[in-house]
């Protein structure tokens, strides 16, 4: 099984690097977002003692990981449509290998792109550099990337079209990102929004990034570090379990 997982992981990386538009889009879009928001709101919005750029930086990291997870897992639908998945299903490997291989591939890409942006953040002073921040930030990126890619994989496996996936993305994944405390602090939000933010697992992922990077301002209302860690690990484990469960489920539609 490990060889199959390795092969599927490697294929994701080779396909990604062979698609220049995807490389540029995955990293470029969040950078453009970050520069526009951080630039536009520089003097008009502060969160406690933080400039908006400093506040938004961990959120952008989460956004990079999420977009990479989306683009990586949307290939599940392409793989099925193009027949590649059938070829994997008749190979003597457990179906879980497909989930592990795809998630490992997408998560590697998400964590790598996040790491590139993180290094840029250190270089341009959006986050104060320390080895603890670097190591902690990278570790959280990996866990978050696994959680989001596994979540995207499970969604993609259950959907038939890339258009349907886009729909679910706009309805579920984007609101989850918007409500994660990546764009605005929890403290000033309306009660309903704040309640939604409390149940959004990404709130704790972004919170964990803030803790790891020493980016916590009391005014942002970030949950405690141990809560963030527990919820994020549980989110990753649950997403991974879901990704495996959907592949193991045998049904007629798998054979399409």
């Amino acid at each position, binding site marked *: 099984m490990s060889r199959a997982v390795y092969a599927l992981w490697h294929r994701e990386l080779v396909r990604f690097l062979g698609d220049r538009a995807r490389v540029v889009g995955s990293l470029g879009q969040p950078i453009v977002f970050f520069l526009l928001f951080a630039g536009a709101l520089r003097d008009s919005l502060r969160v406690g003692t933080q400039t908006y750029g400093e506040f938004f930086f961990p959120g952008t990291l989460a956004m990079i990981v999420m977009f990479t997870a989306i683009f990586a897992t949307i290939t599940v639908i392409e793989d099925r449509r193009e027949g590649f998945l059938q070829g*994997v299903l*008749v190979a003597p490997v457990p179906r879980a290998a497909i989930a592990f291989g795809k998630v490992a591939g997408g998560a590697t890409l998400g964590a790598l792109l996040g790491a590139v942006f993180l290094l840029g953040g250190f270089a341009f002073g959006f986050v104060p550099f320390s080895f603890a921040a670097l190591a902690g930030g990278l570790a959280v990126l990996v866990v978050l990337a696994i959680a989001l890619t596994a979540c995207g994989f499970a969604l993609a496996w259950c959907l038939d079209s890339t258009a349907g996936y886009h729909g679910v993305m706009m309805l579920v994944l984007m609101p989850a990102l918007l409500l994660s405390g990546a764009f605005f602090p929890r403290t000033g939000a309306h009660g309903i929004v704040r309640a939604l933010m409390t149940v959004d697992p990404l709130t704790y992922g972004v919170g964990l990034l803030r803790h790891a990077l020493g980016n916590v301002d009391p005014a942002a209302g970030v949950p405690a570090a141990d809560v963030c860690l527990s919820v994020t690990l549980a989110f990753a484990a649950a997403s991974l379990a879901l990704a495996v469960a959907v592949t193991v489920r045998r049904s007629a539609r798998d054979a399409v």
Partner: protein
Amino acid sequence: MNDDARPAIAARALGHRYGSREALAGIDFTVARGARYAVLGPNGSGKSTLFKLLATILPVQQGELSVLGVDLREAPGAVRARMGVVFQSPAVDRRLTVRQNLAYGGALFGLHGAELAARIDEVLARTGLTDRASDRVDALSGGLRRRVELAKCMLHRPELLLLDEPTSGLDPSARRELWALLRGDPDLTVVFATHLLEEAEAADRVLILHEGRVVAEGTPGELSASVGSPALEVAVDQEALPGALVLLATRFGLHPIAFGGGLRAQAHDAHLLVPEVYAALGSKARRVSVSPPSLLDVFFARTGAPFPDGWMPPPAQQVREGGRR
């Protein structure tokens, strides 16, 4: 009994339903080791469902199915390492090179390192793709892409190849090339689904499916002989087809079916009818001839249904396809 003495495939009362729709209604057949076995049938006959069952993509719902001695109801995964499957839809990654596709395909079957590299070189040579190994698959013609599929399925040296419409979309010369690759390995069992008569007639045995049931099973020779009568083939212009059909039915008492831009009808005295049909059709007749009974007639004789459109592409279309390449 050891595995080698068992048939490659044995199906007993094999059925499959998609919800309330019955795709296979309890079929029986056996494929001997080393045979070239064709599954012939129009769209919706249950061919694809049968292939998905054989390929272990669908679970066995009703009846029994054993492949290479393995009962698929109990251990479907156990047989995967011993068979190769070529699907109708391509299972190669168009954005990767031929060699990359083979490397990933081999890794899924547990091959690695020097052995994988050697096997890749071996199948590339066997399929005549050595020169194209570094090309991306989307730069290859349809025929070459099919060869990549076949190469991928041969990497792990399977005992059984399942090919679902392997020559679908290929012109006649690419079809011949593909079949040539599969000759010369007497130990390899090849089971293929097709809607092309010429491919089925070249098989050792043929299973004809219609609406989820077995219509006929046997060697092409046995099946054709079971029909008995030769067939009268009449080629006319498209606009004259309805008139000719009525003429054959009323004046000559035949049961003609339209196929390949012409008409075909079984008749004991077909050779005697040739001049009479010519005379009756006059200038509308392009060709009137007698052909031995074929699987086409077997299907008609056993089902009472003519061949659905597209079951046999008209000769004119084949010529056009050939000319495009």
